[in-house]
């Protein structure tokens, strides 16, 4: 979230807290040290600290927008309630002003209700995002498996998804795309440019696929695509489409494909091995341009 907004929230919170504590000090009597229940204070204090940590996490991780605003209001309300509960412990109950006693019980329930509403909105938001990321995730999110360069998943994620799909569908196709002579690109234009191209290719492939398909970065400039419930013909067509779209970006690619059907007893690892072998064969027989 924007730093300025976070700073504003911090400032406002500090003002409110200082105002409350000053008013209480003016209008009420503090308990003697003996009367203070330290156990209560530590539990209330812990709840407040937790609330503040949730607030901080949400501010740092969420983008701006309505859902975030609602979540923040909810959390702020909860924290305010915790703060007032904590303050309560330091003053003699009967000496606290009327407005304090009235106000004390309000922030927490309102905050929690708002938070719940915010979470409902978050759920809607998340469903939309999941749909947006379909061809890059297929509803399996393991952020540690994301490739840092292209922002799509790596081979490990593909292995996982492939193993899952083999159990769930009756036929699928694997397509492997490998950019030719990509080392030259990296050499000539540097890694930053090379990385950008890989990212562009990854995005391109992701947008060309059907919603039930998945693309991952296998290694280097090699991508692997899984297409469940797909005929061999469709696989070859899509492979050709991808190659021509990549060609329009200016890069030549090689492709290999593999078709698997239900009675066939292979597992994810052997399918991946097979398509790699196919890719090897394609690469071996390819004639390279002599002039570079």
């Amino acid at each position, binding site marked *: 979230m924007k730093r300025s907004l976070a700073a504003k929230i911090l400032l406002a919170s500090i003002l409110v807290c200082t105002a409350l504590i000053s008013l209480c000090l003016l209008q009420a009597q503090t308990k003697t040290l003996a009367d203070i229940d330290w156990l209560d204070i530590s539990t209330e204090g812990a709840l407040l600290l937790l609330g503040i940590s949730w607030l901080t996490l949400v501010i740092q991780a969420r983008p701006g927008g309505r859902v975030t605003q609602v979540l923040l209001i909810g959390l702020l309300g909860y924290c305010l309630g915790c703060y007032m509960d904590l303050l309560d412990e330091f003053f003699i109950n009967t000496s606290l002003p009327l407005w304090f006693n009235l106000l004390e019980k309000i922030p927490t329930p309102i905050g929690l209700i708002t938070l719940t509403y915010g979470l409902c909105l978050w759920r809607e938001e998340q469903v939309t995002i999941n749909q947006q990321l379909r061809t890059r995730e297929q509803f399996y999110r393991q952020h540690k498996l994301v490739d840092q360069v292209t922002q799509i998943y790596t081979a490990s994620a593909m292995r996982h998804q492939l193993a899952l799909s083999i159990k769930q569908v009756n036929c699928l196709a694997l397509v492997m795309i490998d950019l030719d002579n990509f*080392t030259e690109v990296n*050499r000539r234009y540097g890694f930053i440019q090379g990385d950008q191209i890989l990212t562009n290719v990854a995005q391109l492939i992701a947008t060309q696929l059907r919603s039930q398909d998945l693309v991952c970065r*296998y*290694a280097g400039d090699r991508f692997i695509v899984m297409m469940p419930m797909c005929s061999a013909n469709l696989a070859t067509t899509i492979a050709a489409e991808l190659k021509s779209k990549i060609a329009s970006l200016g890069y030549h690619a090689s492709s290999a494909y593999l078709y698997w059907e239900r009675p066939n007893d292979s597992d994810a690892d052997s399918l991946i091995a097979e398509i790699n072998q196919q890719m090897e064969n394609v690469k071996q027989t390819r004639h390279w341009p*002599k002039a*570079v």
Partner: protein
Amino acid sequence: MQAIAYASDKCIDSQLLVSNLIALFEQRRLNLNRLLSGTGIFTQDLNEQHKISPIQLSKLIDNAQKIWQGGDLAFLLGQHWLPNQSGLMTNGLLCSRDLAQLQAHWLKHHWLSQPWLQGWRWQTESKQHLLLALDIGAHKQDRFFLELTLSSLVSTYKRLRHESWQGEFSLPYPEPKNIEQYHKYLGFQLTFKQPLCVISYELAMTKKNFDMANPHGYKLASRQALRGLMAAEYKVGLPGAIRSHLIRHDSQQLSLPDISERLGISSATLKRRLKEYHTSFQQLQDEAKLHRALYMLAINGESNLAVAQQLKFADSNNFRRSFKRWTGQLPSQFRDWLSQVHS
């Protein structure tokens, strides 16, 4: 045995790996301070004839591996090896007539370019084999250095010949987590859990001409490289020197005190120096014996008894037991090792 580099001797040219690593990290916008922390290497020093020690290199690679995500660091460095190295060694490689000449050039002068490994050349009926073992490369980073050298070899070949690499790789460790990088950069003919690291290719492949062959250039580069080697302060690392010596004198049963006497240091000092390299005399001795045993079995086709006698084992049973301890398999399984690495 002179000019041997101990772990704290500054014998590695920074231009070799350090600058490339730093450049790569800079391009990917990764934290250079974390990369260099604890290594004693400073970016401002890298411009001159700067050298680092094996200990510094080890720490640098350690840091790099912790920061880099994706498991392809060594491969990327290897891919861009040839163009990024200017210098005595690489001129010769670029001008080589064919793979045979390239390999010979590399073996002779590898200290100038990739001092972390040492190599040997074996030949069977139809294939050539290049064996690699760690010299000053730290043992715990063996995969990194092997990945680096192997991918530099493959990309150099591709560049000089403009076609795909068709050799086989035997690797001395189990299938790693970043296996897909191996598939991409080294191809599919890989066998793991082998006793030694071997690169094998058909003899026919060694005679195919390279596009940029330049015999005059090669002679010049060769002479330059030789001069560079002679002028070098160090010519081999301690593990490499000991291993070579043990292999050459395999029938002599050399012990730690024998070697330390040759080096002119005490046994305790030698033990300590080896420990700095994270290895021990026993380990080097076992490696040398294994190396010789495999040569006699796979190349010469000799019997267990002959090997046991040559390597001064009490009897062939003793030899078999030691062999099983080193490799997990029996000697008889290795008689056709190199001709049948990939069935």
